[in-house]
């Protein structure tokens, strides 16, 4: 006998309701636990950033600052030069995003739509380069930049952070391009479109989720750039936020108040940028993955 799930007399329904409830409760509990674990350090940093020095290490710890103060924010934004560092980070991140998106779109288009010798090798070679990691790249980049006269310039940070993210974005773009039916290209060709027009007018508008996903990845990558920015620049006027934050770890100890205030200040723009794009980001990643599989 076949039982229907929506049958009110069905014995399965009687058990399935609490089972579903338990499953949902477990799921929500897990999400809540995960949220608590991931958000706690952020909330703690936020709370610390509004505490006076004397309260930061008080025992028992205060979760809501008793001596609520804007002193730490005043020191980094008014006395310090964090606006300048934020502008540097914005400039480097936005330029890096533009460059890496442009390059990776071309790479993705070429490798998904054209057949040429060594295509697979190039793609895996790029991917292999990612496995080396940025720490191993620092010293060669340092010597390269000093030899070609790019040391201590914005250009070297933009170039290096773009170069490090292009392989990942190229794979993402290639996957997404593949998910777009080739018939679209053929129809456009019949209508007289050339490759350039097919790319800009037909395919690119369909690539929105992948472009957003790529932009988010490239922005986060460039925004959080630390080791390259610290090694390849020296001048204070070229400092980016992560490097500037590192200066709060002094030989005389860590300046926790300023450090947490600066960290919150540096995190907010990226949160504001990513949240509205969340939907496209997930769509871009998943569609690309499915397309390439």
């Amino acid at each position, binding site marked *: 006998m076949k039982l229907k799930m929506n049958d009110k007399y069905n014995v399965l329904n009687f058990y399935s309701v609490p089972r579903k409830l338990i499953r949902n409760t477990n799921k929500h509990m897990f999400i809540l636990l995960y949220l608590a674990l991931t958000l706690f350090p952020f909330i703690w940093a936020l709370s610390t950033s509004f505490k006076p020095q004397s309260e930061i290490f008080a025992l028992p710890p205060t979760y809501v600052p008793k001596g609520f103060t804007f002193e730490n924010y005043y020191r980094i934004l008014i006395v310090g030069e964090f606006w300048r560092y934020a502008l540097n980070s914005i400039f480097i991140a936005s330029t890096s995003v533009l460059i890496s998106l442009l390059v990776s779109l071309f790479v993705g288009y070429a490798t998904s739509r054209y057949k040429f010798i060594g295509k697979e090798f190039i793609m895996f070679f790029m991917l292999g380069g990612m496995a080396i990691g940025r720490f191993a790249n620092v010293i060669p980049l*340092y010597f390269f930049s000093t030899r070609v006269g790019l040391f201590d310039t914005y250009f070297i940070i933009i170039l290096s952070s773009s170069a490090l993210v292009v392989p990942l974005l190229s794979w993402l773009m290639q996957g997404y391009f593949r998910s777009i039916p080739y018939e679209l290209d053929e129809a456009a060709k019949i209508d007289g479109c050339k490759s350039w027009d097919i790319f800009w007018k037909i395919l690119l508008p369909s690539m929105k989720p992948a472009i957003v996903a790529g932009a988010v990845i490239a922005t986060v990558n460039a925004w959080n750039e630390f080791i390259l920015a*610290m090694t390849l620049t020296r001048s204070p006027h070229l400092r980016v936020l992560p490097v500037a934050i590192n200066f709060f770890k*002094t030989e005389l100890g860590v300046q926790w108040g300023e450090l947490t205030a600066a960290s919150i200040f540096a995190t907010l723009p990226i949160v504001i940028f990513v949240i509205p794009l969340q939907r496209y980001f997930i769509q871009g990643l998943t569609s690309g993955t499915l397309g390439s599989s």
Partner: protein
Amino acid sequence: MKERRYALIIVLIVLVLSSMVPVFSGGQQEPVQEEKEIELLTFFTPDGTGTRQVGFKKIVDKFTEETGIKVRYTVVPWNQVNTQLILSELSGNSPDISFVEGEKFALHMAEDTLRPLTSYIKRDMSSSDIEDHLNWNFGVHSDGEKYVFPISYLAMALFIRTDLLEAKGLSVPATWDELIAVAKAINTPTTPGLMFPASPAQATQLNWFQPIVENFGGKIIGEDGRAIFNSPGGVKAFQLLRSAIHDHKITPVDAGSITYDEVTDMFAAGRIGMIFEGSHRYLTIASRLGKDKITLAPIPGKDKSSPSPTTVVGWTLGIPRGSKHPEEAWEFIKYFNRTENALEYAKISGEIPFLKSVSEDKFFVEDASEHIEFFVDYINKHGISIASPATAEELVVTLAEAIQRVVLEPSTDIQVILDAAVKEYNQMVGLD
């Protein structure tokens, strides 16, 4: 046509981005003025508000005023100074003058990053200038050449909470037994009697642990550079740390995962009874805790007559091999070494002076600077050089990991842990 238009747009974007480079860079721009200028690699910022930075800036400004030589700061984080100096020297991008960490002196000798200064010294310094230095041999290499001049000295001591001591009517501990007794008396669940950082995450253990090892008759490294802290004396020193946690319960087991900065912060917040701490952090701690709540004492010893020694380190000034203006850089070092300037810097910075004439100045025997008086006296009587081979970084990490294992694995034989650590280090640096 459209293809051309798009190609033109891309070329324009590239051109605009390229044109931004010189506008937004600046690091490569040559100074227009013909005034003399030297580049200083440092972790002091010119607009810094810390006492050391203010003091240093004052000397720099006076130097520029008197000599016409400008000093351009290149600021990197303090723990990056040595790396940046070596990198810039290797790439032919050297600063004219640089801070050099005293503990990394052997590393710079191995990397050949610094110029010998003996010829300048012979030319410009008198024998009385040399004799005025508290420790002239600081910065002298085995080739007999002097390469660096100290800015100040840094020594370790036992920092004790005066108020806790007075509340229990206790006196300052001078021996290990007394230290344990005092720590037990002031120990509470929220305020450990004694705390030390055993986490290798911030490896500074040589500074405070080498004195303890030496007090027990051990050594960190031998004459040939091999690690030898697994000697009977070394084992006793490690045993002291383990027993503080597991036998006497005066130190929480958290010590195994706590860093130097965290210990300082906890002490400054009034949450620890006693710590081993450096002179350079005295003023920072005092500003948070209050001078009246800090008592300084030599690191205890086996008996009252022989306290543990104190490691003497410090930041120094050296001239890199690739310096483009070595004469001007030497002028600055010479200027900083003048008694009146060294005195002014020491007064403002609150650091231990490097000249005898400065340390004997009445300012440092007044109450306001009694911590300087204490440290100068301690250094003079019991100062030792810190173990600083070219592989000091590897040595301190190995030592830190051994300390961590000793305190976190109470059932493992200390000798076994130390033998393994010593073997690992000696093999790592090619001495085994």
